[in-house]
């Protein structure tokens, strides 16, 4: 089958692939041309500078540690959640899934308000202990970076490992017990080897995410000593105005990330889900008590930073109710607030256009990849991931310099294209499992009924892909909505999105304004999350 109609699907994927390659190559071309400026002096400097390797060491250290802790915390919890069923189990897992759509800038804001020296947590602890100085000093340190990364990624590890574990039938474990193996021996010799691919893929996903972390490092690290490639490139462009140096560093980072993606790709092989899932045991008595305790712990870790954003949007630091920030947004009064309304509209429109395009182009690419059983198409579409969003932003900003334009329309276009380049690989990756789940025999059956390829795609295959497209849309929309890295690097003052405004407000200590905008961003993220959740229904499993 694949041989007969794959050409048709490739043809349909071609516009998407072309746009992806062009959008990826243009910024890369400008980055390269800047890096090789002046006989590649900047490039030589970057490769021979010890600081570059210090950056690499730090980036590796923070990503490894964040991924390790996230996975290590998740495994015992997943072990419990994949064995027992209890009230609110599903709700907690759904809440964990929210981490996929929470913009990083909200984590930054939530952390500042909750964990800050004058934050809610310290206030509570000061009241309890009776001290008049902050009890916990977390922010602006290495541990803040790790804590924020774990906050954002532990739920992802928890969700992936729990789902993977639940899908493993427990008959091999039962067989091991009947052979006289104890619980520990069974876990290490029977369960763990089967679970390892899931654990590894969660680890790699988190590792790669932390490797390109930006706003968490920039704000919560608060110190140039804690610099990753992404933050350093941003600093060189926007603070030192050293475009050649930034471009050279981008190329170094591009190769490092490329190598990482190649090394880690075997770990992300897809496994066939087993048909026979394990039957969960109903938790009663002590197990139920343990379940309640674990759920409370998870909620106590996840909820406070987000809730404190909402609280802070309506209350002053002293605890008095106020709507000042909201009035400022509505009036478009002074300063940063004057652009708030604009920012809300910008964010929404850019995310809408970029994610619609991403899903449209991405589904063509995903169908072609599935029909051809190709590894190359997914590889090609994940290239922008290797580039890193700051580098893409830098490339687009270098393009803007070359264009030397004044038009606001071009600024919007560049930001939207940068967002599209960043989110398209994620859209493709989300849709590919759906495309692969459609059996080839469905199209074959339709052809033997005399139905054309186009109608078969529209009437038979597209409805089956719809849930995945909706999920991809939600994911892409959320990513675009929360995008800071590229937008901040590319931002030339013309285009302000919600996360950029929040970032600027945090920088100018306007926490109430940031919290009001953060609440709006959180609301949008929740809506998008709900849309994506709807998408899970009716999917082919």
């Amino acid at each position, binding site marked *: *089958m694949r*041989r*007969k109609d794959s050409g048709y699907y490739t043809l349909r994927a071609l516009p998407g692939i072309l746009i992806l390659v062009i959008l990826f190559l243009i910024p890369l071309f400008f980055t390269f041309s800047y890096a090789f400026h002046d006989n590649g002096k900047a490039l030589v400097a970057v490769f021979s500078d010890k600081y570059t390797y210090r950056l690499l060491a730090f980036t590796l250290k923070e990503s490894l540690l964040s991924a390790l802790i996230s996975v290590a915390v998740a495994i015992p919890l997943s072990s419990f959640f994949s064995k027992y069923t209890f009230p609110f189990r599903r709700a907690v897992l759904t809440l964990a899934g929210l981490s996929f759509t929470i913009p990083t800038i909200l984590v930054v804001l939530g952390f500042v308000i909750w964990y800050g020296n004058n934050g809610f947590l310290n206030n509570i602890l000061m009241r309890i202990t009776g001290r008049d100085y902050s009890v916990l000093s977390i922010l602006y340190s290495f541990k803040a970076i790790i804590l924020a990364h774990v906050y954002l990624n532990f739920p992802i590890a928890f969700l992936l490992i729990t789902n993977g574990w639940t899908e493993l039938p427990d008959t091999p474990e039962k067989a091991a017990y009947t052979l006289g193996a104890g619980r520990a021996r069974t876990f290490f010799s029977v369960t763990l080897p089967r679970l390892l691919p899931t654990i590894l893929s969660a680890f790699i996903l988190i590792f790669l995410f932390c490797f390109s972390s930006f706003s968490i490092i920039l704000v919560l690290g608060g110190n140039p000593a804690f610099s990753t490639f992404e933050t350093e490139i941003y600093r060189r462009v926007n603070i030192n105005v050293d475009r050649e140096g930034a471009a050279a560093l981008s190329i170094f980072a591009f190769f490092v990330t490329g190598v990482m993606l190649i090394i880690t790709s075997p770990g992300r092989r897809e496994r066939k889900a087993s048909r026979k899932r394990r039957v969960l045991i109903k938790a009663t008595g002590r197990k139920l008590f343990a379940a309640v305790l674990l759920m409370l712990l998870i909620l106590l870790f996840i909820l406070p930073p987000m809730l404190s954003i909402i609280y802070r949007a309506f209350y002053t630091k002293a605890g008095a109710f106020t709507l000042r920030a909201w009035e400022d947004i509505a009036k478009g009064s002074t300063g940063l607030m004057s652009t708030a309304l604009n920012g809300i509209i910008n964010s929404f429109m850019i995310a809408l256009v970029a994610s619609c395009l991403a899903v449209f182009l991405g589904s063509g690419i995903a169908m072609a990849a599935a029909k051809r059983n190709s590894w190359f198409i997914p590889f090609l579409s994940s290239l922008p991931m290797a580039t890193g969003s700051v580098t893409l932003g830098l490339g687009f900003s270098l393009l803007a310099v070359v264009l030397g334009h004044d038009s606001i329309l071009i600024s919007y276009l560049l930001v939207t294209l940068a967002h599209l380049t960043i989110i398209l690989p994620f859209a493709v990756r989300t849709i590919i499992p759906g495309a692969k789940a459609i*059996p080839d*025999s*469905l199209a*074959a*059956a*339709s*052809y*033997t*009924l*005399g*139905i*054309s390829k186009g109608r078969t795609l529209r*009437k*038979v295959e597209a*409805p*089956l892909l719809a849930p995945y497209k909706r999920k991809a849309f939600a994911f892409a929309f959320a990513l675009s909505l929360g995008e800071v890295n590229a937008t901040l690097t590319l931002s030339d003052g013309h285009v302000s999105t919600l996360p950029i405004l929040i970032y600027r407000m945090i920088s100018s200590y306007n926490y109430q304004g940031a919290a009001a905008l953060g609440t709006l961003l959180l609301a949008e993220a929740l809506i998008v999350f709900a849309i994506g959740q709807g998408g899970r229904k009716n999917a*082919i499993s």
Partner: protein
Amino acid sequence: MPYLEIRKLEKKYKDFGLSASFGVEEGEFLCIIGPSGSGKSTLLSLIAGLDTPDGGSIILDGKDITKEKIQNRGIGMVFQDFTLFPSMNVEKNIQFGMKEKGKDRKKISDALLALVGLEGYGKRSVSSLSGGEAQRVQLARALAAEPRILLLDEPLSALDAPLRKSIRNSIRAIHDSLGITMLYVTHDREEAFSISDSIMIMHDGKTVAMGTAEELYNHPKDLFTAFFTGEGTALPAHLVFENTDGSMFFRPEHAVISEEPVNPTMYPMHIILNDAEIVSAEFTGSGYMLGLDYQGYPILASSATKPRRKTVSLMILKESILILE
């Protein structure tokens, strides 16, 4: 000229090659049987146009359709897998390939549902159907597109035995009432024997025999066909017939058991094998299938009763013995 003619059709894969030539008359019910990997499904895919042959031609009703698009061949297919479209209900699935427009569509789909024994199933979701129901709907859907030939690729292999029996009878009844030409692939010998007009046996990508069930069972042309169409025994021919190469083959029902030694001169029409040792006796319901050892050679013989002795004699009518390569 046959209605469907396959001329030197070839398809080569890395470790498998298919080459087939045969013809099917209009309205015929041909079963294609053979072991797994013998090329049965590949052959159907090539005829349907789901795969492209490397050589040869497919002639349907006098017209070469080898290079014709799948959609224009007028060849329907019922697949082994579940291929009902999940986004449509039963009725919409059946109407999907119909050429008629308007109200007729509903009438025809209802009639087809009645034909396959599923009246009133039209509005059901396809995910609510059992395996047998799903295959019946697949059949109705394929018929709705009014194909000139219907190909069925192991349509019942995923179903349990009693259901298989009942649906295969419905398929034969539908064939007889519509008079449509059908090519039915199965690996189940009994299924092929019970519903076909004729049978084609495939082995290693080649057509090894073709004929009616009776012809293939009673007069197989080679040992593969002999064993594939039923149980039997093959002994080196020179054991009994002087200066004869090849194997002598006989069916278990042609070997008569005697608990007393038999004098060969008394039975000139038979081959007598004395001192055969009974190794196993398997109860088959109507009698026993005996496994015997004769001078180190295994022999199968059927018997109405279970012999009391361990060593018996065998009498095989000479004219029932086939000398095969």
